[in-house]
């Protein structure tokens, strides 16, 4: 009998072209995405007069610097942003890459549209010059972020040298309590293993709660693997996955669909396969979560209180905690539900899919936002679907700012959608780093329903109290 293998082992072995004397594997890369900041990589190619080896394996998408107020050149917040967009377009045309630009309904955040278009598939290796590439692992792929030099290497050779990562499995046992979202699940996992807990590892999420998640929810979970320090996150493909992929534009069809299915059903981790690290988490204990600090591991149940540095005995940790609270403008011991907010952002590759918008709309419906709240769909197609379902009306009637164009927006603010200094923002994105949403901006991460709840109450709010009313 052959040795039991994990999902990661199987994908890795099938993509190993060779191993060099130092033990690194040369991996074949199935899929690659470029965005506006890929200009470094294209410049590196240009310098050496190298062409892209497999243009059909790369898609170029404008998402980071694009405006969310419209799809026209005049919607850009500055001319240098528009220039960056044009550079991507020029590089894509020059190298015969499929380009998803302004006015194209398929355009949106890379980690939303890759799966949506069926370009990201089970059993593949997917890379992009963006850390949240981990998202695509939700379909049973090995997907990870790389830097500019590696992007140029992939464009030139369709390969990458990698040492084999360590394997971690996180098993969620039991069943999911009501009003607990996929975001709460991943924030709880990060809290449990720490922001560096996954360093050097690829995490496979498993167990009954994970199997019961929709693909949208699995994408949210895998998205934040990087916030747990991991290189990638993945979930074995199953019926839910196949049903979700079938019929998408780049998905295999007819005979090749049947062949693909046979291959995909063999990808799952074998019984008895060994992981370097395993964590078991009792799903019953997961509650709606919110972050209070400047690292994603600084998360607590919404019923909690701002931690007190005086209770910390380690002086380094205490100083660290004081710095965080100072940055966040929070007093020790404050009940999280007493923290007032100035902005709400619903969007990003973590929570901008149709299910996220439905969740937020269910809370917003019939209520009124009392702070600035913006909703940015993850792709043009999601926007269209949301409008078909009337979600846009619900948001608009509740005083939310429904943005007509998809993109990264206030997640990182480089398109100009910024949080002002010292303002507080409840955000459905994935990073609460200092300055992430703008200089001195204070970010609290939550799921979409909690973000909508904060918009209508003006403070961090336990969504359970609102939904039960």
């Amino acid at each position, binding site marked *: 009998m052959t040795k039991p293998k994990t999902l990661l082992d199987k994908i890795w072995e099938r993509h190993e072209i060779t191993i060099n004397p130092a033990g690194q594997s040369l991996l074949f890369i199935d899929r690659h995405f470029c965005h506006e900041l890929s200009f*470094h990589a294209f410049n590196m190619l240009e310098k050496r007069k190298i062409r892209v080896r497999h243009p059909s394996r790369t898609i170029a998408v404008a998402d980071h610097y694009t405006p969310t107020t419209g799809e026209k050149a005049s919607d850009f917040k500055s001319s240098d942003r528009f220039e960056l967009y044009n550079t991507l377009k020029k590089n894509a045309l020059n190298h015969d890459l499929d380009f998803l630009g302004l006015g194209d309904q398929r355009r949106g955040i890379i980690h939303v549209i890759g799966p949506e278009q069926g370009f990201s598939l089970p059993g593949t290796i997917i890379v992009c010059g963006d850390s949240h590439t981990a998202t695509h692992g939700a379909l049973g792929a090995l997907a990870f972020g790389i830097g500019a*030099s590696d992007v140029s290497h992939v464009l030139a050779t369709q390969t990458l040298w990698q040492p084999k990562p360590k394997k971690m499995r996180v098993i969620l046992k039991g069943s999911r309590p009501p009003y607990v979202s996929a975001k709460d699940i991943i924030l709880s996992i990060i809290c449990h293993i720490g922001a560096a807990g996954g360093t050097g590892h690829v995490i496979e999420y498993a167990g009954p709660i994970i199997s019961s998640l929709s693909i949208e929810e699995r994408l949210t979970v895998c998205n934040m693997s990087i916030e747990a320090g991991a290189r990638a996150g993945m979930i074995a493909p199953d019926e839910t996955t196949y049903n979700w992929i079938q019929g998408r534009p780049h998905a295999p069809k007819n005979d090749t669909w049947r062949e693909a299915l046979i291959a995909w059903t063999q990808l799952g981790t074998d019984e008895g396969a060994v992981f370097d690290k395993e964590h078991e988490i009792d799903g019953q204990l997961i509650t709606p979560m919110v972050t209070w600090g400047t690292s994603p591991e600084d998360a607590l149940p919404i019923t909690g209180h701002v931690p007190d540095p005086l209770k910390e005995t380690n002086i380094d940790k205490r100083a660290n905690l004081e710095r965080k609270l100072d940055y966040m403008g929070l007093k020790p011991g404050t009940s999280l539900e007493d923290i007032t907010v100035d902005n709400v952002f619903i969007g990003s590759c973590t929570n901008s899919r149709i299910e996220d918008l439905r969740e937020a709309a269910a809370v917003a419906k019939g209520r009124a936002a009392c702070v600035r709240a913006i909703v940015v769909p993850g792709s043009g197609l999601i926007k269209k679907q949301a409008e078909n379902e009337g979600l846009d009306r619900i948001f608009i009637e509740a005083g939310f700012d429904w943005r007509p164009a998809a993109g990264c927006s206030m997640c990182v603010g480089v398109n100009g959608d910024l949080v002002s*200094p010292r303002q507080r923002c409840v955000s459905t994105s994935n990073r609460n780093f200092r300055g992430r949403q703008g200089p001195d901006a204070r970010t609290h991460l939550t799921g979409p329903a909690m973000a909508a709840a904060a918009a209508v109450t003006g403070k961090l709010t336990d969504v359970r109290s609102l939904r039960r009313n």
Partner: protein
Amino acid sequence: MIPFKILKALAAPINQDNIDTDQILPARFLMMPRDQRYGTYLFRDLRQDNNGLKIPDFFLNQKKFAEAQIIVAGRNFGCGSSREGAVFTLVDSGFRSVIAPSFGDIFYNNSFNNGLLPVVLPETLVKKLQQFLINEATPEITIDLETQQVFCEATSLAKFDIDPHRRERLLKGLDMIDYTQQFREAINRYENDYLADKKWL
């Protein structure tokens, strides 16, 4: 790429965990072409306040550390985004190495593409080293990549582990695309076989 063999240089401590790439190079500077001076923006928001005034506590603003070429940092240095700009800005500011108990994986990987050596040492040693740097008038240390050791004054403080392939890349200043081109035949053979097997890709 400049090869990395032995580095004897001033080192500066950052006694904080989770220094993320947004702190190393804030996102608003990512649009810059590579030939502009990335070094100017290193730790921009830790170094200067909102009014552009220097924050005196920050290590790079202290005279003793102004010429440092090595950073000795806390756990999970370079976590966060994949931006290679975080490495560009360190390298352009004259840094050749970062020592920490752990690194963000992508940052770690990007370092080797730019001749920056990330050294992983146990947290207790990192703390000891940071204290040494604070106490010394001339906080100098030596990193020898060939023998994989860090020296404080003349004594070896620790040996460090590093993937042999990455070590060789730095020692030789190897260009990765050139290196991979040597495997062209293996890549061609692989592709023919793989694509015949997986027609949907």
